């Protein structure tokens, strides 16, 4: 018996969520509705102090005048004493927690409401990040598959490299990111390449480990059968091992692309890059533009969901074509 799969994306892929689709759609919608309601509710105490400062400046009557006196008071008490201020907590300019519709409007304005060549368009920034992600993902996956093939076919490589590949998954390799950016910058390489390298090494190890598992998944019986056919090593690889590894490959591709995106975003932080979703996050946190941070965050989330979803669709189609769909 194999140890159960390690990554949430993996359990997501292999698990069946019972129940009728209608009921589960209803359940998901309920959970989302509760989350959004909670979000709106949380905006009130989170933003109340800022709102009261503004309201006081505008000359409104407030239960406790003076921002300094209010500093140590509980937010909930302030809300109850100044109920008139509640609507304003959902419409602040720079709230501590922007309301969902503010984030939605900002997302709309910066994606569809702007020309995509504009420096303020999230599509432009998203593309900067996405291109680095995809380039890095392609490099990382390619090298990862090659190394996995080497590991499966060479005992030396297996015994010397594989333990390090496994250990490397337990260390926060992303800590290397700032250094890679700066070092490559100092030798004159900048732009998409440094970010792609970070993306590549983040997606590299999951693919190696998953692919090795996949290429080894045919059991003795199947390998013996090919031997009785007197199949060569190469034939065994192309006709048995590679097809058998596909489910594993797709699982690790999904993990890898999520990691690649994180890599590209983090890669934009240290140099104070001017473009990309990471740069939007950083700029937003420098200038207190919370709505901008949240919209960049949601853009990143949507991007990640699309990438993983796309891979899921490809997986489904490929496995179905191969007759392996579960």
């Amino acid at each position, binding site marked *: 018996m194999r*140890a159960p799969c390690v990554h949430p994306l993996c359990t997501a892929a292999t698990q069946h969520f019972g129940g009728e689709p209608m009921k589960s759609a209803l359940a998901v919608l309920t959970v989302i509705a509760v989350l959004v309601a909670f979000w709106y509710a949380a905006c009130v105490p989170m933003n109340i102090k800022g709102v009261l400062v503004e309201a006081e400046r505008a000359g409104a009557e407030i239960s406790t005048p003076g921002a300094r006196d209010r500093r140590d008071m509980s937010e909930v008490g302030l809300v109850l004493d100044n109920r008139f201020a509640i609507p304003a907590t959902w419409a602040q300019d720079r709230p501590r927690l922007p309301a969902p519709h503010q984030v939605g409007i900002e997302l709309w304005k910066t994606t569809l409401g702007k020309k995509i060549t504009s420096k303020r368009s999230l599509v432009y920034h998203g593309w900067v990040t996405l291109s680095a992600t995809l380039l890095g993902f392609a490099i990382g996956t390619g090298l990862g598959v090659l190394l996995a093939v080497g590991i499966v076919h060479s005992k030396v490589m297996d015994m010397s490299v594989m333990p390090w590949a496994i250990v490397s998954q337990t*260390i926060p390799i992303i800590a290397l990111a700032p250094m890679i950016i*700066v070092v490559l910058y100092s030798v004159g390489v900048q732009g998409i390449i440094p970010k792609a390298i970070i993306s590549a090494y983040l997606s590299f190890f999951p693919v190696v480990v998953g692919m090795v598992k996949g290429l080894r998944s045919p059991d003795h019986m199947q390998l013996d059968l090919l031997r009785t056919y007197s199949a060569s090593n190469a034939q065994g690889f192309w006709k048995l091992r590679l097809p058998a590894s596909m489910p594993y490959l797709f699982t690790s591709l999904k993990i890898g692309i999520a990691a690649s995106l994180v890599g590209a975003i983090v890669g934009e932080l240290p140099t104070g890059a001017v473009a990309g979703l990471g740069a939007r996050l950083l700029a937003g946190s420098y200038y207190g533009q919370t709505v901008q941070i949240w919209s960049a965050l949601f853009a990143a989330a949507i991007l990640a969901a699309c990438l993983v979803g796309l891979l899921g669709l490809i997986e489904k189609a490929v496995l179905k074509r191969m007759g392996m769909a579960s």
Partner: protein
Amino acid sequence: MMLVVMAFGVWILGWWINTRLAEGPNAQTRAVKLLIPTIFGVTLLLVWELVVRGLEVPLVILPAPSLIAVRFAGSIPILWVDFAQTFIKGALSGYLIGCSAAFLMAIAVDRWEFLRLGLLPVGNFVAALPIVGTAPILVMWFGFDWQSKAAVVVVMVFFPVLVNTVAGLRETTAMQRDLMETYAASYWQAFFKLRLPAAMPFVFNGLKIATTLALVGAIVAEFFGSPTVGMGFRISTSVGQLALDMVWAEIVVAALAGSLFYGVVAMVEKVVTFWHPSQRG
């Protein structure tokens, strides 16, 4: 040039020894299985050292391992303070809070079918998202000190642990649950005696993924603002000063902390799930 040629020679030698060992008669013994990756690692370090010295690569591009080791030994007090700030205060506290919250949530999710149907797809979705991106927001809310780092870690570890625990709690077969029923076991009796132990391999998988995520979260959150101490802070400022030996020393600390943390969780797993086929070997 001499040194580069030597590096090449060392590489060939290391590979030759490993080939001999891997194909020799003792390849399956434990000692050899440990020895081969060690030789590979040492070879890599030697090649790195020789190439850097041979080509006179400047310090600001790639310091030699010996320089990193000297810097590591020379700044143990700084490294320790950074480690305490980032790992013990930030990552570990966040890990404990996040994992216990996720565990309790998983029990609730498992108890109520509706919650499971609704929350699990959302949890799976969130687990794929770049959650490190919440770091600037949480730093803004909780301040620059370790509390904000712990908050980032909580958010990062929550969903993987939740999803894995819920999957684990569904691991028992109908036969086993029926047996409990015939014993007239209450929900909690069946939970503690059957379903929780059966879930443990999954729970520990979640906990093991979470160890790496916790460190990543704590380090990356420091890139968005921190007191003048901490591993992420030291990495980003040392990169700015082009003191790459210090950066590498911190990376060594991060690597050690990450693998030790993982190792400790894996050891606890071994004790708790001693009955599982993957542990009996």
